[in-house]
């Protein structure tokens, strides 16, 4: 698979080695019914201070890729047969379990989708936040609690000092997600992976949480991988986008170009299925068909059974990621036609 140059997309990124680089990553799950190929050769990179949005529907492999980076895949049944995950130039897949543990939380942190189930229900938020400092920095219980209050203030939780001993269920959804963010920020990591951080929230709260995340990212100059299926969330905060389908990246582009001129029929379909005020009254577009079963991915381009442009070649040949302009790539045999339409 061709690896295209993506550094052009990052404003102000002067480094030669990206903060994180995923190279030809494959992840499969061994199930009773066979081998499910969840990730099939993903390449992407993130620089410090940069936001990469990974877009895709459920089963596209976007979360599995993130879990592989984080090192929290269940293995078995999961397996990484091929690929490299370079963090600051070092392949994390070649590291020992203990080395990886020291990176988790300290250098790379993760924010999960559902804060209620992702926080431990029987421990106070202060304990769970303070745990980061106690384990990674050896702070005392008391000092860790003071740090926890500081963090809660940082993510603008009102009356942090009084609420530090409260339990997750005593907070509202938005506040809980702020606690998740605070936990990820605790040790000022260099990379944050946010897996659908706002999906479980009300629309108004979504915007607040997203703004907070973007602001803190700028302040600490962190790399951010934002995993989402919501194109609306992406537009304001991302620098570049990678669209995933059936375990492959089908399109990458700087954020604004993808909205104005998608180079892959799948991205185009996604954009057309967003409800828009100027199309009020018209039927909403929907991509026909269903996402592929990962046990039996269609031959050729995985998207071909659902693609309005599919030709014979699409059913036989897997498209490579064609360079489609500066910082852009499209894994479509007919990317030119798609762009030009």
């Amino acid at each position, binding site marked *: 698979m061709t690896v295209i140059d993506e550094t052009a997309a990052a404003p102000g990124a002067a480094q030669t080695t990206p903060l994180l680089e995923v190279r030809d990553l494959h992840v499969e799950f061994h199930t009773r019914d066979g081998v499910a190929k969840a990730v099939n050769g993903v390449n992407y990179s993130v620089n410090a201070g940069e936001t990469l949005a990974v877009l895709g529907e459920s089963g596209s492999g976007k979360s599995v890729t993130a879990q592989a980076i*984080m090192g*929290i895949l269940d293995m078995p049944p999961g397996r990484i047969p091929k690929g490299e995950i370079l963090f600051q130039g070092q392949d994390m897949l070649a590291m020992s379990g203990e080395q990886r*543990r*020291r*990176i*988790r*939380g*300290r250098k790379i*942190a*993760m924010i*999960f989708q*559902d804060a209620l*189930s*992702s*926080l*431990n*229900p*029987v*421990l*106070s938020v202060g304990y769970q936040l303070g*745990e*980061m400092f106690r*384990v*990674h920095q050896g702070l005392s219980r008391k000092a860790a609690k003071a740090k926890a209050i500081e963090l809660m203030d940082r993510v603008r939780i009102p009356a942090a000092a009084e609420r530090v001993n409260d*339990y997750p*269920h005593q907070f509202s959804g938005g506040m809980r997600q702020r606690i998740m963010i605070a*936990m990820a920020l605790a040790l000022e990591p260099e990379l944050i992976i946010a897996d659908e951080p706002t999906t479980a929230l009300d629309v108004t709260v979504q915007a607040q949480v997203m703004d907070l995340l973007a602001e803190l990212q700028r302040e600490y100059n962190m790399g951010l991988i934002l995993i989402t299926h919501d194109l609306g969330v992406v537009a304001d905060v991302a620098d570049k986008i990678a669209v995933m389908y059936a375990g492959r990246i089908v399109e990458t582009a700087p954020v604004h170009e993808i909205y104005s001129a998608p180079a892959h029929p799948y991205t185009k379909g996604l954009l057309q299925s967003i409800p828009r005020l100027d199309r009020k009254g018209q039927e909403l577009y929907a991509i026909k068909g269903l996402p592929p079963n990962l046990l039996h991915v269609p031959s050729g381009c995985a998207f071909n059974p659902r693609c309005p442009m599919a030709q014979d070649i699409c059913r036989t040949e897997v498209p490579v990621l064609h360079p489609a302009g500066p910082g852009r790539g499209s894994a479509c045999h007919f990317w030119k036609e798609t762009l030009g339409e």
Partner: protein
Amino acid sequence: MGRYVIRRLLQMVPVFIGTTFLIFVMVYALGDPVAAMFGDRAPDPATAAQIRHDLYLDHPLPVQYLHYMGQIFTGNFGKAATGQPVTELMGQAFPVTLRLTLVAFAIEAVVGIGLGLLAGLRRGRFADSSVLAFTLLVVAIPTFVTGYLLQYFVGLKWGLANPAVGDGAPLGDLILPGIVLAGVSLAYVARLTRTSVAENSRADYLRTAVAKGLPRRRVVTVHLLRNSLIPVVTFLGTDIGGLMAGAVVTERIFNIHGVGYQLYQGILRQNPPTVVGFVTILVLIFLAANLLVDLLYAVLDPRIRYA
């Protein structure tokens, strides 16, 4: 919280009255205690009537019950068949049984939780299957069978432990009876812990704990075990009462003169004060253990608040 405790204490009153009355009726149905005193000989009718009158047995059952309860609250539990006050027997028997129960409880908790954790963490593997097979075996065999078998092999044949435990025996001697007494409960604890651990190890918050970069030991003890033990602690608490009552069989096997021994003697000699008195105390212990568990539940799981 205070109001909850008061409400629970009030709820105990009807439970207490109901259970003790049932016991009273059952013991009454055992047969004629006066006839039992004379053994095989036929008692002189006049003497029998006198004894009956002295023991308040010439009144209808509900009146007898009220009279008995009234006496209990003044601390008078009546006299055993030997003529000793029942309270004196209790003073001897309960400390013995309590010691045995504590030994059994410790074995049940430590071994049961240990096996359950091992099996839960290694679901579907050899350790898991072994624990499941072992616990199934323990549950399937009655206590008196395991009791006599262990007594014979460990106690007599191999001489690893005392086959009988005398009064004032050291705690070490109680280990074998403790294992027998704990057996079935231990199996339940192991299975309960296994299920709970297996369920919680798939929880989102556990994935978070790993993602935080916590060492595995901390992930398991602080995050996994803390959550998984909530149902187990509930079972362990209610089981204290069960262990004390279950000691009847174990004490008989190892000739321990505890609550079980006295109860057995009471039933054998058809002596109502002994049987009802001991069971009443057991009921109280059971109720207290239950209340304690419910209160502990709120401490372990902050999502539960009593009002």
